[in-house]
């Protein structure tokens, strides 16, 4: 195993930062193993994303804008990744640790007889052996796991864990043939986006402003948190209590049963900090909490806890951040 293949997940050519994090890391691993760094982009909008990927140190970018990719639930994607992996030869396949990425990864474990490292935050390569560093059990343990005994291995990559370093090294964009003789079974009949376009994906935002039960309803997510997140250049998240209450969509939920985020700044507003929530954000760079209750468990793992009324503090804080930004510009 000496090549590295990146599966570039996207929707209509729009991708997430983790794709470029993987493209950057693929080169580092491929160099350490003496192999090639490759990427695969399939589905509508592939050509556009392939052009963007040329700014990264890859050798080959396999492309096919096959319309079936967006019509069937991952069946064509799995076929393409398998075909690309076989074309590349023994390789490590990097897949984003997203809902769809985990399904693709699991299916490839069986297809390729591969080992898997899950939710990987770092790789070590020694004497041709790749080991994966992953937080387990909600971050209570950090494990190091070696990939062995197989020509192919898979790693699902935690967004925001690897750095991005563009460097165009003349990657070749190469069409990849549609795998022949395949039948697809699970048909996508409709596909609805709830995250409005242009808003940052929660998992890769550098700043997350999250709200919980203390907000008392759905409105403060729009009127209170969104302006602060916008001022800080970040995204809005929520605790399970807020999602369960129907105040926000589940795609914003952070925690054990939601998303795991590792922004440089996490602002928790009206969130008590139950273990369910903690495991989804404990690895954030700096944690600031605003809560009425000074005894809330979130105080135990916040860098700064302000005991007070979020409804009046957040708007003033937003103004301070906005005026600091204006000063910096002028």
């Amino acid at each position, binding site marked *: 195993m000496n090549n590295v293949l990146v599966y570039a997940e996207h929707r209509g050519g729009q991708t997430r930062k983790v794709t470029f994090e993987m493209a950057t890391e693929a080169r580092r691993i491929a160099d350490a193993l003496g192999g090639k760094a490759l990427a695969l982009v399939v589905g509508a909008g592939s050509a556009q994303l392939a052009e963007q990927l040329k700014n990264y140190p890859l050798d080959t970018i396999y492309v096919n804008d096959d319309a079936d990719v967006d019509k069937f639930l991952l069946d064509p994607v799995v076929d393409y990744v398998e075909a690309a992996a076989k074309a590349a030869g023994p390789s490590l396949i990097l897949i984003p640790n997203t809902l769809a990425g985990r399904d693709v*990864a*699991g299916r490839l474990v*069986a297809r390729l007889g591969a080992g898997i490292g899950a939710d990987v935050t770092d790789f070590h390569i020694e004497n041709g052996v790749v080991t994966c560093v992953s937080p*387990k059990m909600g971050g209570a343990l950090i494990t190091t*796991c070696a*990939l062995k005994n197989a020509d192919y291995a898979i790693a699902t990559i935690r967004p925001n864990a690897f750095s991005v370093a563009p460097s165009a090294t003349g990657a070749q964009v190469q069409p990849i043939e549609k795998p022949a003789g395949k039948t697809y079974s699970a048909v996508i009949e409709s596909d609805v*986006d709830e995250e409005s376009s242009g808003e940052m994906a929660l998992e890769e935002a550098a700043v997350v402003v999250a709200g919980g039960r203390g907000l008392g309803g759905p409105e403060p997510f729009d009127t209170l948190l969104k302006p602060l997140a916008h001022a800080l250049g970040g995204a809005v998240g929520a605790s399970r209590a807020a999602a369960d209450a129907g105040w926000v969509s589940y*795609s914003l939920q952070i925690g054990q049963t939601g998303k795991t985020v590792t922004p440089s700044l996490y602002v928790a507003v009206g969130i008590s900090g139950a273990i369910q929530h903690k495991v989804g954000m404990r690895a954030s760079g700096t944690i*600031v909490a605003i809560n009425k209750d000074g005894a809330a468990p979130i105080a135990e793992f916040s860098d700064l806890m302000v005991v007070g009324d979020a409804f*009046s503090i957040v708007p003033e804080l937003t103004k301070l951040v906005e005026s600091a930004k204006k000063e910096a510009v002028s």
Partner: protein
Amino acid sequence: MKIVVTVKLVPDPNSEKKIDPNTKRLVRTGVETVLNPYDEYALEAALQLKERAGGDATVTVFTMGPEALKETLRKALAMGADEAVMLADAALEGSDVSATSYAMAQALKKTGFDLLIVGGLTDDGSTGAVPGALAEYLGVPCITNARKAEVTGGALQVERETDSGYQTVRGPLPALLTTALTFGEPRYASLKGIMGAKKKPIAILTLSDLGLDRPVGTDGSKTQLVNFAPPPVRGKGKTIEVADATAGAHAIFDFLKEKKLV
């Protein structure tokens, strides 16, 4: 319609988790084993689909684990499952995702199913890869994160959550389904259910019943745990009480400035 639900037996999630430094496996002694709480959502989905299907629909719970833990399955039977099957063999110990899903798939071929429901999350060494691997080894469609599902005309109609919203998906049976927690809260076992569960069958399969064509357990695994450590300690920071909103906003702003975050 035969519905099979896979469940995992895990150490009580409320207990402290430890790994044995020698075997590098989860310490399970002295810790109560329970049904993975998330798998109860999968079981709830199975029971709802059985009720809607009526007729001769049945629910079988399936697990892989040490035979000594088989009584843990009574809870699933008390909730309403009709029978349980356990794949138990010492040679399975140390199996990774690839070996585990291969062995489970061979056992599930043996039990047979029209619909296989797999819990979407585990509380311990989760990879999220088992459902996908199982579907491939079984050669059935893999439809994940369902928040609604319906069986109509031999097909499965699902509304599923995605990273950015939701989709409706249709696929033929037999199929593999995983459920999101939004499918519905698991029911409580009734007293009648608890009493009835004592008489329901729990069948044990071993590897010799399956006829595997590749190794499982540690030898059949493609990954090896080499090290583990607790994460860096995150110390408690400052807690400040503020007189008013202005003081609170300034306290945070100054802190962010000091950290160069604004």
